[in-house]
């Protein structure tokens, strides 16, 4: 038996090394299944919690055009949450179980959403920086070994890159506007820059999951490589906007062919991960309220559907 599992594992690894996709019905190591449930559900939760800081500005969007675009964007995020929950369900966990884990704090979601969205410029900065950082991760995930996850990512990436351009366009409009608007954009960059860099996770030497994840092609690049890629692509965009990236150590390094950058405040990072950011409690409270207040609705829908099914059966007989 022991040998059998070893053989299966070796065969499984061979398939991954050959670039084959793993599908829901295929044999997979238990750890692979669990890692994917954790990662895909975290990703789904991030989409759903991510609706809150942006939803915060729907009622106050500055124009009808912006309001429509923001509604559509937040709606896309709900859609991403749905496909990701479905992808995770293929691994043998229900959406309800995952939502319970989010609501009781045992599952994580991206820490970035524990920062507050304070001005309209935050809608620009979130699109530009947060979606920009997310895309870097997600483009890599379109090639991940688990088929349902990889396919969900292909679809999500297309919409995310649209969101990112939309966010950048909000920033560009502000930067071409009045002094007050430009100051609003700079303030948003100041607040979102460092948390966006933190989205790539701890430094490689402190990221214990990376090696196994690389082997399974859940990851293809390390946290630090992805972070560097984000900085290299984003700094020139900030230059076009005429905004200053809030890092006095940021400097182009000719020899490396990359930007050097300052030290991330890891204490802040771990604090927010552990639940001590400004909005962690509020986000969970809002998600719990939505779920608890919706219980009677879900119960009623189930009761109604059961009754309709009974009626159909009794009609047929």
């Amino acid at each position, binding site marked *: 038996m022991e040998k059998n599992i070893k053989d299966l594992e070796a065969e499984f690894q061979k398939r991954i090394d050959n670039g084959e996709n793993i599908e829901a019905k295929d044999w997979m190591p238990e750890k692979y299944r669990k890692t994917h449930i954790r990662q895909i559900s975290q990703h789904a939760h991030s989409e759903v919690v991510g609706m809150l800081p942006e939803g915060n500005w729907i009622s*106050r969007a*500055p124009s009808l055009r912006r309001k429509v675009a923001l509604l559509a964007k937040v709606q896309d995020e709900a859609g991403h949450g749905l496909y990701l929950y479905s992808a995770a369900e293929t691994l043998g966990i229900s959406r309800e179980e995952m939502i319970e884990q989010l609501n009781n704090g045992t599952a994580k979601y991206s820490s970035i959403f524990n920062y507050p969205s304070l001005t309209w410029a935050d809608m620009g900065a979130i699109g530009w920086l947060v979606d920009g950082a997310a895309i870097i991760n997600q483009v890599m995930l379109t090639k991940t070994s688990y088929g349902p996850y990889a396919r969900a990512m292909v679809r999500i990436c297309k919409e995310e890159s649209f969101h990112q351009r939309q966010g950048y366009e909000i920033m560009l409009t502000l930067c071409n506007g*009045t002094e007050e608007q430009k100051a609003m954009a700079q303030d948003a960059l100041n607040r979102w820059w460092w948390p966006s860099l933190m989205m790539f996770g701890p430094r490689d030497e402190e990221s214990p999951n990376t090696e196994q994840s690389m082997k399974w092609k859940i990851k293809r690049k390390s946290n630090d490589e992805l972070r560097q890629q984000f900085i290299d692509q984003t700094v020139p965009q900030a230059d076009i906007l005429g905004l200053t990236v809030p890092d006095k150590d940021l400097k182009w390094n000719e020899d490396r062919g990359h930007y050097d950058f300052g030290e991330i405040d890891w204490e802040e990072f771990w604090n927010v991960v552990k639940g001590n950011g400004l909005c962690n409690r509020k986000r969970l409270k809002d998600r719990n309220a939505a779920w608890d207040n919706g219980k009677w609705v879900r119960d009623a829908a189930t*009761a109604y559907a059961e009754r309709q099914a009974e009626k159909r059966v009794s009609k047929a007989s």
Partner: protein
Amino acid sequence: MSDINKEALYDYLLLLGDNSMILGQRLGELCGHGPELETDIALTNISLDLFGQVRNYFQYAAEVVADGRTEDDIAMLRKEHEYKSSLLVEQPNTDFAYVIVRQNFFDHYHYMLLSKLVDSKDEQIVAVAKKSIKEVEYHLDFSSTWVKRLGDGTEESRQRMQDAVNELYRFTRELFKPTETEERMANLGIGADLPSMEEDYYKQLHALLEEATLEVPQGEVFQYGGKEGRHSEYMGYILTDFQFMQRAYPNMKW
């Protein structure tokens, strides 16, 4: 078109747009807070449709007044008493039952209204109505399905729905009581003849409530005023959010 009729047409476009706008705003408040992702997506979708219609009406209104005002100026820079939405659509998202009942009471009306406006003598109104009626057909289907599910769901859901029906029913008749502008536009063949729609409206609505095992409130004192700018206390707060950016940062492009 005479100046007087132009002014009435502008006013009529506000009457059409404001209902969609205030209801769309209420639905937008719910985004991210729905009972399930599917309902969240559906309600956001309805809000999106309604704001799309608002943009069509107000872009046209801006052409009609032709004094440099934009769709956003028209949407966001009026005083509270200049908004012509009915009292129904500004009522709060008390719970999901209120959201569904408010939506359904409005959708029945909205669908009938657009069925008339597709034959308007004003081509632009016809174009908007033809596009919108397909959307509103879906809204009506969505909200009616939920009225049945929740009315005939559990004891709790039936009670919550009955409470919402009892509270909101008194705002329905205002939809059919024409303002001076609505009368004038109906006479010109541009607008819908509202009183002629009322009987069918209540017939359809009551049939749905009955199917959903809900009772039709009896002896209600109907409330009027929103369409003439006399709103409930909720409206000021809706506008505080809705107008915030335009008021705090005037004369800027976004």
